[in-house]
């Protein structure tokens, strides 16, 4: 067994190291933002076809200024259907709750920010696939509960008898 006093000292030292550890670049990231000129971000998607209506949009470098992701139903962005603020200096953003359809995304063109356009197709599982698994699950769960209760009650009766 580790000696308690030695272990205590090691734990205290490790906590001290943790306290003194250099914080992530996140804290100082965006103050010099506007000095950057014309950064062309490369957008990518976690998938080109989402079966669940959620997905991750990523950029190739940490944002240097406040950015907005635009969504459109057409590749030329003739009509922007939604905008999403990019959070902090993270390089990824998770979007969710999308219905079936084609979607296009790009970063809003403002001073110093531009990006490529990415395309996503959302195609949810069919209802019959979902219901099949649901009813199989329901059936199996019912079997388990009935089995458990029946066996437990029967065993208790036998023990009492």
């Amino acid at each position: 067994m580790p000696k308690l006093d030695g272990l205590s000292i090691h734990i205290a030292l490790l906590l001290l190291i943790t306290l003194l550890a250099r914080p992530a670049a996140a804290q100082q990231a965006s103050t010099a933002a506007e000095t950057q000129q014309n950064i062309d971000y490369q957008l990518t998607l976690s998938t080109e076809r989402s079966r669940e209506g959620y997905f991750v949009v990523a950029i190739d470098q940490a944002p240097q200024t406040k950015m907005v992701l635009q969504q459109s139903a057409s590749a030329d962005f003739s009509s922007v259907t939604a905008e999403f603020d990019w959070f902090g200096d993270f390089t990824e953003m998770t979007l969710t709750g999308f219905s079936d359809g084609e979607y296009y995304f790009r970063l809003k063109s403002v001073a110093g920010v531009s990006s490529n356009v990415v395309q996503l197709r959302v195609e949810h599982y069919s209802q019959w696939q979902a219901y099949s698994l649901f009813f199989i699950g329901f059936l199996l769960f019912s079997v388990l509960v009935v089995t458990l209760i029946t066996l437990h009650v029967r065993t208790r009766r036998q023990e009492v008898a």
Partner: protein
Amino acid sequence: MNEVSGFALSSSLGLTLVVLFGIAWIAFGWYLGRANKTHEDFALAGRNVGFALAAATAMATWVTSNTTLVAPQLTYQFGVWGMVGYSFAALGLILFAPLAARIKRLMPNGYTSGDFIRLRYGRAAWWVFIIISVVYAFGWLVSLGMAGGILLEALSGLDYHIGMSAILLICVGYTLFGGLRAVIATDFIQALIIIVGVVLIAWFLIDTVSLESIHQEVKSNHPQLLDLLFPAAIMFLFNNIFFGLGEIFHSNVWWSRALAFKGKVAFKAYLLGGLLWLPIPIVTGFIALAAPQLGIFPPSADMVGPMVAAEVLGKIGAVVVFIVVFSALASSLDSLLAATSDLVTRDIYHKYLKPQASDQHLLRFNRYSILGLGIVTWLFCLPQIATLGALLNFAGAFVASTIFPVVLGLYQRKLTGTYAAAAMALGTLSGLVGYFTIGFYVAALLSCIVSAALCGFGLLTSQARFDWQQLNEKEEPTS
């Protein structure tokens, strides 16, 4: 919110909270650990845990990164069904209540779930079970370590590796000193913190962002989240239930508690723990539905809970979130460290490698196991390999295969070790196939279906009659 960085807490405040918590929990663990004289004291708290502590530890241990980070994640991904479906994991605790009472009666001298499988089904099934247990334990341990890193990163922008290392260090520290006694006592305090904190966060959220505005935003721009016929969410529902059942029915975290609880406390404690747990994922999950309204789109879905809470409640709210989630993580991490080290010490080291080991020798080995598990978990946590939800549900493919072998093994004399081993092995394989070919939301369901079918076939064809007395294994005296 911090104007410069966009994070609710400064990194130095985040670190200060970690250090203060660390010192407090480790000191408490050391204080409680002074009463541990034997291996049984350390591993099973002297088999003398009363009702209040028992119910609190059942509830608090089940409130974990699953509930505080993954419930919001799944709500963010699957909408209303993610939230409601997650709360059904309470069924695991509720249905384990009769099993816990049965375990206590059949194995008054038992130590671990591995003991049961070995005595009931023999070596082949035991090996399959141990592999499943170890994969699950590491999956859960890694997810908890990751959650600590994600929490601090989401709230303060602090590097993931610092938060992850800190929570592991703290939990290993106080579990090492205090054993199960410290784990259960800290769980009791953590349960109180969790309940009060979660209610506070939900109250402030509804007060700040109205239900109407949340509903309107989600309905307009993220309609799938409110769709009760959302296909992937419907597929996920029973998968989550079987995952929860598999986690609890097989894991030594819950078996060791059933064996540690005093007299007939186990049934009532698990039942109450489950009922207390039921509304918590609804509350934590609801938080995620406010994210679009607040303009929060997290880098990773598992960060949505703390990010929303911190945005709504500001710095004080972020501190509350930190304390609640950190307590939840700690209450599970310590339990898992203690239970897994018991499994390694008892099932592998004592029963397989060194049967003549003395009580003091086992106590020492148990502590080394905790330390070793902490180090291995830390190594696995270093690369942030998946989201918490995906990582946890990978383990679902393994644990759901144990549900029917455990239930039938406790009540039915006819199921043999061969069928139990085959059910667990083939169930796991089927679950993994589903995980990789369809998605994480079907892994546990497929695993359980195959396992149940094999167990059913085994019962129909078997003529065996297991003698329950074989489960009451007497300890050989060691000094």
